[in-house]
């Protein structure tokens, strides 16, 4: 077992438990707790004129019915603006229960707590809320036209506006021999984890404390926010994240209204209370992402090299901005991908609409940015008659130019400075994998069979592992069991395995002895959360550093016991031995015993640490001044900046010449996330990311009507891909270690999703021979485009002025 674990396809520790019904997700907890249900607004924008709960009071088993008027103290205040930003001049957030006016369908208006969910919903059905409808704003076009307002005091519906510029774009465009302008459109989708949100509050009336379980991506964030809202000392609130059935971004937002209301009601009632989100609730009261209108003007030379890039986009942020403007900031910065843009200016507006709020969903603004940039690359190639891969290659940042500073501020408030990457090598791998240079022959063959095929490509850079920090605690018990805790949460990323691999290597113990806990504020009170592909980078390095602290301490104690120098010792398989003299050794678990001087022996092994056992220096205290009892260590990893992973995808699509049905024949991925802790897990993350990308490219959209009703708020109508829609994914990897952290890791979680929309658009454009400027695209939309282009005059032509 002393073989190195990091870098191996280690099978997952968590699987046997999850496969046998022994997982514990939020709704599996709290059997017997009271259950909450909500009356939610059926209107996108309306004034509440009356709430009549009389009939609901008759429902057997109802324990409490609450409206805004019942909320006391800070629970009645607006929800926090989590990430303020200077550009966010008009942040607006809702209340836990709507106060006077509702701003989107699904906003919570009344909370009912009852003996079970069925009864709570019975009561909800008997509550009559009267509304006076107000004018509704849906979609970017309507929001920016400035007619109606979502918030009375926000002119033109503009929550935020920002201009960033590097170099002189106007001069660069004026001097460029070629310019093109593209108008682009990308629609909303959503994280849509199979498990919705959920909250379970255990109120301890005896000591006035709260244990809160939430299906969240940040337990420490929820803890701080709930303690503040309920006016409780942090010391009386603990938050535990159970098994989480997927997150993909939506669960990083906090506190959701229910995360405040459920513990608030539990305290008020002196009872345990639980709420489990149902699917319709998730559609209309969680969050969405992606919707943007974009305008790109690009200047380039006759070789296709970028001279100037001028981007404007309008971002639909929904009704509120609790998560600030992270998504448009990421679009604006990560749009640049692996390229040198020449002069660059980006200007964006984040706009209110009477729709579900918009917060990061896997990719978090990058899919939109990548789409804008890659559509532009294809347009340049088409304009100049050049190979699309070649145009990209000519604009790449070269390996010898790393680290490369794009001159912009990234989402963490730090420079957008790429730490490493070898883009030409990645492209070479991708071209070989997909057979880029042989595609013309394949196309000709297909054409002879009456088939229509196309190939597409997309490249991206992903800033991963943003700070500020994560921590790790490693503790060796006298049994030899190694407990590892880190504060960020887990929702499918294999943390119990990956972090155990890292600690097993660093400490020199068998994997089977290592037990990892995440997302539990009782075990690690300082943490940020799981988002931005940061889990492995941040907590992976934190647990490695903590394990190194423990290792050093173990060697020091063992050296004393064996009367050798620590430098002569090594740890393998849980045994500390003199190098070259394996007979002279001591078990790590025995060192754990010795590390904690005892008065009372709790078992026979513990006798070795008691006061009459062995010899000691009577002039020294049992625990040295600069030491602590126990074989335990803690450390934090806090980087100066993000690491930058990158990748390139290519797809081969076939479109039916008659029906315009779209099939993805091949999907190829080359990915570079630095050192891979577990290649099997990285591969799995890529697969899942691509699948969500395919959904966003071809199937998923949020269909709002003009009154702000979400028409497809079910899995029947929101078309998440099944196995039959997701292609077989072929992958190849580069490992360019990050110089920024001890393990050389870059994040991998979101990468697969980022370029898919761009790649599919590229491939469809290649197959069809006309520009694709709006995504996602359905067969019927493609068919309409064919008609339009057949009649020629329809689409605006792009070309040099």
């Amino acid at each position, binding site marked *: 077992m002393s073989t190195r674990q990091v870098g191996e396809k280690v*099978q*997952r520790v*968590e*699987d*046997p438990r*999850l*496969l*046998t*019904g*022994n*997982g*514990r*997700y939020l*709704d*599996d907890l709290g*059997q017997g707790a009271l259950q909450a249900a909500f009356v939610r607004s059926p209107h996108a924008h309306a004034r509440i004129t009356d709430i009549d709960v*009389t*009939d609901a009071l*008759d*429902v*057997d*088993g109802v324990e409490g019915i609450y409206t805004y008027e019942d909320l006391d103290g800070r629970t009645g205040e607006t929800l926090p603006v989590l990430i303020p930003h200077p550009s966010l001049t008009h942040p607006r957030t809702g209340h836990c229960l709507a106060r006077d006016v509702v701003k989107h369908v699904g906003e919570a208006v009344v909370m009912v707590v009852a003996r079970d969910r*069925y*009864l709570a919903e*019975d009561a909800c059905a*008997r509550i009559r809320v009267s509304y006076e409808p107000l004018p509704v704003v849906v979609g970017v076009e309507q929001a920016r036209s400035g007619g109606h307002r979502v918030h009375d005091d926000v002119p033109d519906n503009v929550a935020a506006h920002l201009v960033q510029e590097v170099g002189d774009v106007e001069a660069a465009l004026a001097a460029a021999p070629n310019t093109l302008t593209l108008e682009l459109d990308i629609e909303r989708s959503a994280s*849509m*984890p*199979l*498990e919705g949100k959920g909250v379970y509050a255990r109120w301890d009336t005896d000591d006035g404390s709260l244990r809160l379980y939430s299906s969240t991506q940040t337990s420490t964030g929820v803890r701080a926010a709930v303690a503040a809202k309920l006016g409780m000392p942090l010391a009386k609130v603990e938050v535990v994240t159970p*098994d*989480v*059935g*997927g997150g*993909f971004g939506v669960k990083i937002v906090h506190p959701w209204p229910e995360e405040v209301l459920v513990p608030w009601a539990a305290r008020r009632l002196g009872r345990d209370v639980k709420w489990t989100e149902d*699917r319709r609730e998730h559609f209309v009261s969680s969050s969405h992402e992606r919707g943007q209108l974009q305008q790109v003007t690009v200047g380039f030379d006759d070789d296709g090299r970028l001279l100037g890039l001028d981007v404007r986009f309008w971002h639909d942020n929904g009704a509120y901005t609790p998560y600030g403007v992270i998504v448009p900031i990421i679009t604006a910065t990560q749009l640049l991908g692996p390229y040198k843009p020449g002069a660059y200016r980006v200007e964006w507006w984040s706009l209110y609409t009477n729709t579900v709020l918009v917060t990061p969903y896997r990719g978090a603004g990058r899919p939109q940015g990548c789409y804008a940039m890659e559509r532009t690359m294809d347009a340049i190639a088409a304009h100049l008659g050049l190979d699309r891969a070649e145009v990209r290659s000519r604009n790449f940042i070269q390996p010898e130019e790393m680290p490369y500073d794009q001159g912009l501020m990234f989402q963490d408030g730090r420079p957008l400075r790429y730490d490493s990457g070898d883009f030409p090598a990645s492209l070479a791998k991708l071209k070989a994998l997909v057979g880029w240079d042989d595609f013309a022959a394949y196309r000709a063959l297909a054409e002879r069979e009456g088939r229509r095929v196309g190939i597409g490509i997309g490249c991206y850079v992903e800033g991963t592992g943003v700070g500020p920090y994560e921590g790790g605690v490693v503790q060796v018990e006298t049994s030899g069991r190694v407990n590892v805790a880190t504060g960020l949460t887990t*929702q*499918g990323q*294999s943390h119990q395995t990956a972090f155990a691999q890292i600690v097993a290597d660093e400490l020199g113990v068998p994997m089977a002895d290592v037990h990892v806990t995440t997302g539990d504020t009782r075990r690690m009170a300082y943490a940020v959360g799981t988002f931005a592909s940061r889990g492995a980078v941040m907590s992976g390095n934190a647990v490695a550093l903590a394990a190194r602290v423990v290792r050093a301490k173990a060697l020091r104690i063992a050296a004393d016991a064996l009367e050798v120098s620590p430098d002569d010792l090594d740890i393998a398989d849980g045994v500390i031995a003199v190098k070259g003299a394996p007979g002279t050794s001591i078990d790590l678990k025995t060192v754990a015993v010795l590390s904690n001087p005892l008065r009372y022996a709790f078992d026979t092994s513990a006798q070795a640490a008691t006061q009459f056992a062995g010899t000691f220096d009577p002039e020294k205290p049992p625990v040295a001044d600069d030491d602590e009892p126990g074989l335990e260590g803690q450390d934090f990893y806090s980087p100066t900046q993000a690491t930058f992973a990158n990748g390139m995808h290519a797809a081969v699509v076939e479109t039916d010449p008659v029906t315009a049905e779209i099939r993805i024949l091949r999907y190829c991925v080359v990915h570079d996330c630095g050192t891979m802790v577990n290649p*099997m*897990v990285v*591969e*799995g993350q890529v*697969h*899942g*990311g*691509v*699948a*969500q990308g395919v959904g966003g490219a071809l199937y998923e959209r949020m269909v709002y009507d003009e009154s702000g009703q979400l028409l497809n708020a*079910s*899995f*029947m109508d929101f078309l*998440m891909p*099944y*196995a*039959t829609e*997701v292609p*077989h*994914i072929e992958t190849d990897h580069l490992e360019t270690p990050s110089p920024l952290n001890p393990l050389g890791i870059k994040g991998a979680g979101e990468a*697969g999703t980022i370029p898919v929309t761009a790649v599919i658009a590229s491939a469809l454009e290649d197959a069809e021979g006309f520009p694709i400027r709006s995504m996602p695209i359905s067969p019927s939309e493609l068919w309409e485009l064919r008609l339009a282009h057949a009649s020629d005059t329809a689409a605006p032509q792009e070309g040099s002025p």
Partner: protein
Amino acid sequence: MSEPVTEQLIEITLRVNGVPRTAAAPARRLLSDFLRHDLGLTGTHVGCEHGVCGACTVLLDGDPVRSCLLFAVTARGHEITTIEGIGDDPAALSPVQQAFVECHGLQCGFCTPGFVTTITAYLDEHPDPTPEQAREAVSGNLCRCTGYQNIVRSVLRAAEIRRERAGGDDR
């Protein structure tokens, strides 16, 4: 509309994983909720409550059904098999469960019990599927994490493990 609402409870006895189980529940109790909340078998998960995602799939007399689309009372007289009945011991996995471990067929694990029950029933009738058939077999269940590729591999691997175990190699 304003008469007091009180629920009549019915004694419901089902055979679940080979054992008769009884609990009092109203007639409208969904089978999924009955299994989870009345019998404490929380391995069956609920992802959509409208029969699309398949996370709640259990076997009814050996056939996959969506337990969110059945009332518990209608399952009287039938044999229900949940994920716990396929195998509830992490140290003694069924062929399908073992295949999921080997092929990284799950990430968050929420949809997984529905896949395992579905695939278990499928392999009983189609012990040697092709890759295309394996993909088709899981095409009624949603997974948001894996992209399905490793689930398809798991189906094929599970078929192998079944043959290996049937061949006398019981490990």
